[in-house]
């Protein structure tokens, strides 16, 4: 879509008394490769869509469609509440990532990667098989023009991988891994297969203690899952009461090692972009600093109303969707000098939990959670036995305050945005065979 067309649309809307207006346009190409019960599927898509938000000081509308917008719409009669769009502000300089020009992976390359995962899986564990493998890769161009002077364009690219495997144990649940990266070529088949095998072996051989405490080393997957549960606290919109309930006498909600940030410009990140879904500059926002809650993610509108720093964190899932506050790269800040091995060596008696085995249940209001987990029993810093079918239980505040160590191995996983965590050493939580 040309700027001229977008300007013509804005002019036409202004002519109808809709002086607050925005034209959003996104186009892209994507490829998807799948192996599973439906055979081998190679899909390629060219996507092109637009969205217009427009309003007067009385009412507003949102219209989205495929292709390109036309000056005449047709536009519905505005309804409901008036619309306020962000003003144009200067955008800090941003260097586009170097991989934007790299071609998307071809069918042979992608299927070879999935086959390599399958082959490694079978060779590492007899009887294991890949039941589903899915690779997506795409690149896109986005432009935003508004009646308030925003004129931004940027490009993005992303790749994702989902694999699901089953092992030799009949009736056991599958092991699943979901990853995202900027390029499909960064996925390493042996490493992915190894992770699947670890999880399948634990399911087959692991046991759960009746009830036990001790030092718990939580792998990145566990840290990410717990951060996801904490998102209502970090996303604004009524999080004040939750924060108050978690604060201790010193005003902290967590250990001094607890530092959480969101950064829409995270270098090399899948969602790295100069502006957010409304054209506001992205930035690093400190949400929790040394255990003290600083602020939730805030759109320009929330920030103005609540006196917060604007996070530049309004995201659009697609051109069909309205912009909403959401994490871009939200993560527990790692300690660059701490190796996982040194945290591991420090555990005299405890557990190393490497992954979840289900969705778990989180109740922020009642300050409690339970999460099915798998991993290893640790004795003197070494794996002594496999662990599976156990429930990590406790209060969310105990988890936040019980963080005793943070390693440097930050890993992101795709959720609603990219959520990241390094390995952490935690006390104050409990493992149980029965969650009740």
């Amino acid at each position: 879509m040309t700027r001229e067309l977008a300007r013509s649309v804005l002019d036409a809307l202004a002519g109808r008394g809709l002086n607050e207006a925005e034209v959003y346009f996104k186009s892209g190409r994507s490829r998807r490769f799948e192996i599973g019960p439906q055979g081998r599927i190679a899909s390629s898509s060219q996507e092109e869509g637009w969205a217009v938000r427009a309003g007067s000081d009385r009412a507003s509308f949102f219209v989205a469609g495929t292709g390109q917008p036309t000056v005449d719409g047709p536009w519905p009669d505005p309804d409901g509440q008036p619309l306020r769009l962000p003003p144009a502000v200067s955008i800090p300089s941003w260097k586009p990532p170097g991989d934007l020009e790299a071609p998307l992976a071809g069918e042979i390359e992608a299927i070879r990667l999935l086959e390599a995962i399958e082959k490694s899986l079978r060779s590492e564990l007899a009887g294991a098989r890949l039941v589903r493998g899915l690779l997506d890769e795409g690149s896109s161009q986005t432009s935003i023009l508004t009646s308030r002077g925003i004129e931004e364009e940027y490009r993005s690219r992303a790749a994702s991988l989902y694999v699901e495997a089953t092992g030799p144990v009949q009736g056991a649940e599958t092991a699943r891994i979901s990853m995202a990266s900027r390029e499909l070529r960064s996925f390493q088949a042996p490493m992915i297969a190894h992770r699947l095998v670890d999880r399948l072996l634990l399911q087959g051989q692991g046991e759960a203690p009746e009830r036990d405490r001790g030092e718990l080393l939580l792998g990145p997957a566990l840290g990410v899952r717990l951060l996801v549960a904490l998102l209502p606290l970090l996303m604004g919109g009524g999080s004040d009461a939750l924060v108050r309930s978690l604060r201790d006498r010193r005003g902290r909600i967590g250990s001094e090692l607890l530092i959480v940030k969101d950064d829409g410009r995270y270098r090399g990140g899948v969602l790295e972009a100069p502006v957010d879904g409304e054209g506001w500059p992205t930035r690093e926002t400190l949400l929790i600093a040394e255990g003290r809650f600083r602020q939730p993610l805030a759109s320009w509108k929330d920030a103005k109303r609540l006196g917060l720093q604007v996070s530049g964190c309004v995201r659009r899932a697609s051109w069909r969707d309205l912009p909403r506050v959401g994490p871009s790269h939200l993560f527990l800040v790692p300690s660059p000098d701490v190796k996982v091995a040194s945290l591991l060596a420090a555990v005299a008696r405890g557990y190393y939990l490497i992954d979840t085995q289900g969705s778990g249940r989180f109740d922020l209001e009642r300050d409690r959670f339970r999460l099915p987990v798998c991993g290893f029993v640790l004795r003197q810093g070494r794996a002594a036995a496999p662990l599976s079918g156990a429930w990590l239980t406790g209060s969310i505040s105990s988890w936040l305050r019980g963080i005793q160590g943070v390693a440097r191995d930050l890993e992101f996983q795709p959720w609603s945005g990219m959520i990241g965590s390094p390995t952490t050493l935690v006390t104050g939580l409990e493992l149980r065979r029965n969650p009740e």
Partner: protein
Amino acid sequence: MELCDNPEVPLSGLDTTSVARCLSQIADHGNDLADAFFERLEEVEYPAADEAPGIRVRREEGFAIRLVRDGRTWLAARDQIATAAFGEALRQVARALPSAPYPEPALDPAPFPSLEDTSRLARFPTSVTRAIRRRLAAFPMRLRVRRHRRWIRVIGTQLAPEPQSESFHSCDVDLPWGRFGALIPDLSAASVERLATSLTTLFRAQEAPRVKPTRCGVVLGPPAAAVLLHEVVGHALETDTLMMGGRVESALGLQLGGPLLNVLDDPTNAPESVRRSSDDEGMIAVRRWLLREGVVEQPLADLFSAHDSRALMPGAARRGTRHRAPAPRSTHLELLPGESSLEDLLAETDGGLYFPEVSRGQLDPLSGRFSIFLPHGRRISGGSLGELVGACRLHGTVSGLLGGIVGVGSDVESAGAGWCAKNGLKLPVWASAPSIRIEAAEVES
């Protein structure tokens, strides 16, 4: 040339004969399957009163070309319906380009018709609020209501069935204690009353005591039975699920449940506005017996899975979007009624629990374990409904649960079973079911 120019006919202006001829050129191996799928979607949404922007309209159209050969599928999709884009997608899917290709087909669909009157949609939230007040309740809520319309046209190398269309409504409600969602075939007064009853009960259940983990007799009302059947019969008997565990044909004839269980999938008998005569691969939709007296008769199959099987019957393929290949899914599940009244079922379940609704469900296809989440229920005491109980979960294995169904009611209700999201394909699924009684079900809060 078959070319309909009537702008009132959805997806008119497609030269179906030329499309079929072009597809036949790329399906040049004996067992090849090639088809073109055209779709047009419209969604009109009214948000909660305090949300901006106001009315929200989403309209999209596009197509996909697919070639299936020797267990492999190639698919190319575009977000427009245009001759040049068709030619480009066709070349992308073709394994070898014909030396003398046919001319590209004329694809000139009529523009989207103007937006139909949406005043009933706009009034719906107020009607629901009033209905809740008539129940002497009031609580904060933000209700969004949507009208969904979809038109599709599938063209194969040899057949081009009638265009299909669907129209229905959905709503989601943000409540202080969580989110509630429902599919609604129409915006009738009965739909308003049903939604108001659900929301009011949900509100009153917030202070209700929780159920301690137990194994007990359970009666599920028709909407809850519909979701349960979707999870444990519908998903369990989709050929892509069955293929994960081995040969699909080995499931045929298995005794999965008791003799009271007669479960069908029948898209031709769905609520009128979503009724289908063909599926998303253009195959004739049929009344399919999934379970006859508890025995597996005909799993849900698409062309891919039925291609090399004499025992499987296609006609149950669905596409969440043109950008994804079709997959076998249920459209409209039916549990045939039994002879017991609801009163009979309750009387036989003294000391048990009654659950009228389900909020969501999930099935692990390999382990066969499922969970359904129940937002509220009632204790059954002396053959009638007693104390309200709070949210809980019913879980177990498919075979354990189906074997435990010992009573089927006569009170069939037609209801939207909800959105299904298996493998990321979001699809509306429908059902009609009576109440059922389950013996020794595992329930926990």
